[in-house]
């Protein structure tokens, strides 16, 4: 048994080997691609190098189900074991998930699908054999029994006598990638908004002139988020593997920051034969940072709307469609105008009114509406730049974690994900409801904006460990609804 991935979902692939009449033939069936066809040479060399005889018979290898296209060198090891078992060199071998590429000397190389193999094994309750270097991360799949092996010989030994399973890697997170929110001096407003966004999982937009610290803040945002659970980290790892990207198995939330010239397929996912996840899925359970939001083509921003709302992205292809998870939190930054200095205190703007109008029009209201927090930033106060460093990420992450726990007790997800009904069940102080009413009547809020404010206010209340949403929480939430 081995594993194939359909999108980011592991599918079981059964390896059947038949050894027939004496003659040297090697048939491989079951929609293999070229890299699998070449398995013959690698398997043959590896078996010989490991001191076993490669049977001089007609060998037929079937990769079932026959109609699922398969790709990659990960089938080398299971095919080799199947050949040896069929030739009765080793005992019959089944109910094991195996994935790994073979070197000519019999060494087992890493596999893209090690985590997928772990997931499949956990689902079936079977043991899982992967390369030794892959084993610690595959073992992180909750419930998986993983054995790391370095060579074909060790895999053969496994068939006769089982060794101790590999232990999952203990926390691999130094969390210290050298950047910390403490480095951002000043900007108390934006810092607080980031904390609220992190605590409630809210999408956030920062608008301000170049150099005011938008990008710096955004890059430090993931460090405020709680660590991923193993389950979440496994989902992320599968998506990255499906996109053929390397990422150390980690409980750190991923951070992606695609450039505004990126194509629709790069951001949402695509590809014809084997659709791969896009940036929005690579940022699953993490942060998708859209810098220079106003420079992204409007059709792309429109296409982002639905995935952001639903947490999944569906790629339709001839015959079938694939769905990738895409529950990422968007942090966006934008200049207020093409030259960037409209409304700046020190530098005057060089844009005409028409240019500014055109620029803002790109950020259409329906898209801006997806941001629970929208803040206007200005260049930091010069005094604060010389002042003491700000509060560190780790302290803020603690508060964020506490606030998140409260949310999980109340509902399935974060406050940002609260549905209408869940939102209506929240308890608000009378004065809080009154304040929303005043803001609505005075035109500070739209109907949709009021819903966003209610969610954000709940998060602020969670940060304050308050059962009820108070008037002060709503008032603060309204402060994050700047209009541009």
């Amino acid at each position, binding site marked *: 048994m081995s594993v194939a991935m359909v999108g980011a979902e592991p599918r079981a692939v059964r390896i059947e080997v038949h050894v027939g009449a004496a003659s040297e033939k090697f048939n491989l069936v079951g929609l293999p691609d070229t890299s699998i066809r070449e398995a013959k040479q690698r398997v043959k060399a590896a078996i010989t190098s490991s001191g076993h005889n490669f049977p001089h018979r007609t060998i037929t290898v079937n990769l079932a189900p026959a109609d699922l296209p398969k790709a990659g060198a990960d089938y080398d090891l299971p095919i080799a074991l199947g050949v040896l078992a069929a030739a009765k060199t080793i005992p019959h071998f089944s109910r094991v998930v195996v994935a790994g590429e073979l070197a000519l000397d019999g060494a087992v190389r890493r596999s893209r699908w090690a985590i997928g193999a772990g997931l499949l094994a956990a689902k079936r309750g079977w043991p899982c054999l992967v390369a030794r270097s892959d084993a610690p991360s595959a073992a992180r799949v909750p419930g998986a029994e993983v054995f790391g092996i370095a060579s074909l010989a060790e895999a053969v030994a496994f068939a006769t006598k089982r060794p101790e399973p590999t232990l999952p890697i203990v926390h691999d997170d130094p969390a210290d990638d050298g950047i910390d929110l403490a480095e951002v001096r000043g900007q*108390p407003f934006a*810092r*607080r908004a980031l904390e609220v966004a992190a605590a409630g999982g809210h999408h956030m937009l920062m608008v301000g002139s170049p150099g005011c610290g938008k990008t710096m803040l955004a890059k430090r945002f993931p460090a405020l988020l709680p660590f991923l659970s193993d389950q979440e980290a496994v989902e992320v790892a599968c998506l990255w593997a499906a996109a053929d990207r390397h990422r150390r198995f980690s409980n750190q939330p991923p951070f992606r920051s695609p450039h505004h010239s990126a194509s629709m397929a790069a951001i949402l996912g695509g590809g014809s034969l084997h659709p791969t996840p896009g940036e929005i899925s690579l940022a699953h359970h993490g942060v998708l940072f859209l810098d220079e939001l106003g420079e992204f083509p409007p059709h792309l921003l429109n296409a982002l709307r639905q995935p952001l709302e639903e947490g999944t992205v569906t790629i339709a292809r001839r015959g079938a469609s694939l769905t990738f998870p895409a529950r990422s939190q968007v942090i966006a930054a934008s200049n207020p105008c093409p030259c960037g200095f409209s409304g700046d205190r020190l530098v005057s*703007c060089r844009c005409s009114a028409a240019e500014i109008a055109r620029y803002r029009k790109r950020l259409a209201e329906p898209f801006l509406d997806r941001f629970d927090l929208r803040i*206007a930033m200005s260049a930091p106060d010069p005094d604060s730049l010389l002042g003491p460093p700000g509060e560190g990420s780790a302290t803020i992450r603690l508060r964020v974690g506490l606030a998140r726990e409260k949310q999980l007790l109340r509902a399935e997800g974060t406050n940002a994900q609260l549905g209408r009904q869940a939102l209506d069940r929240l308890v608000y102080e009378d004065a809080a409801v009154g*304040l929303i009413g*005043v803001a609505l009547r005075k035109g500070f809020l739209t109907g949709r904006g009021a819903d966003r404010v209610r969610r954000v206010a709940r998060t602020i209340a969670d940060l304050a460990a308050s059962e009820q949403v108070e008037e002060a929480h709503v008032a*603060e939430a309204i402060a994050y609804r*700047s209009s541009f």
Partner: protein
Amino acid sequence: MPAKVWVEGTLPSLPGVAIVGSRRSTSYGNRVAAQFAAAVVGCGWPVISGLARGIDGVAHRACLDAGGTGWAVLGSGLDTVYPKQHESLARELIATGGGLVSEYPPGTPPAPFRFPARNRIIAALAEVTVVIEAAVDGGALITARLALEMGKEVLAVPGDIDRPVSRGCNLLIRDGAHPVLGVDDLVELLSFALGPPPRQLSNRTSAQGVTIEAALAQSEASVGETLADLVRRQLSE
């Protein structure tokens, strides 16, 4: 003076400030017009203009955005708003307590010769006329001249000496109009002419940007509390 005028909405009850200027305004003019209109409205005075393209439209828009009331004097019947893009602006003016004024009966189409004529109504309705940008042969300069003839105050915003659309304003200043050098200057000059402002100029952007940072820098309370405070103050205005 016209024998009669048509009014849709109301008529101003307080002395108003006319903000007028060229239809071919520059980004500088638009910016100043918007700032000035917001400041005038922030002080509680109504804004009066001609609903034309350029400065007029910007002033009306800024006035409404700042939550003020404004009046537009048209050079056509009240049923034909010109330019057409400003129809919604006209409707908003009426809906927010301001109005439209014209000396022409409904059904009168806009015509170039009617616009200078409506300028005298603008000059008459307003106590002070602020000219933002004007060419030497522009309608805004006509409004300014008429206002002076009626013995009313005219303020002008200085501009580049080599730009045609600034020339009118610079001429006005040379001939004795008061130059306005900024929002504070404007408020001061207006209070000389109109008396103390009906309300204190409050910074309407106080829930965002610069003033937020200033408030946070001064406040002893937590960031969240300070923000909540700012919003409360703004909503209770």
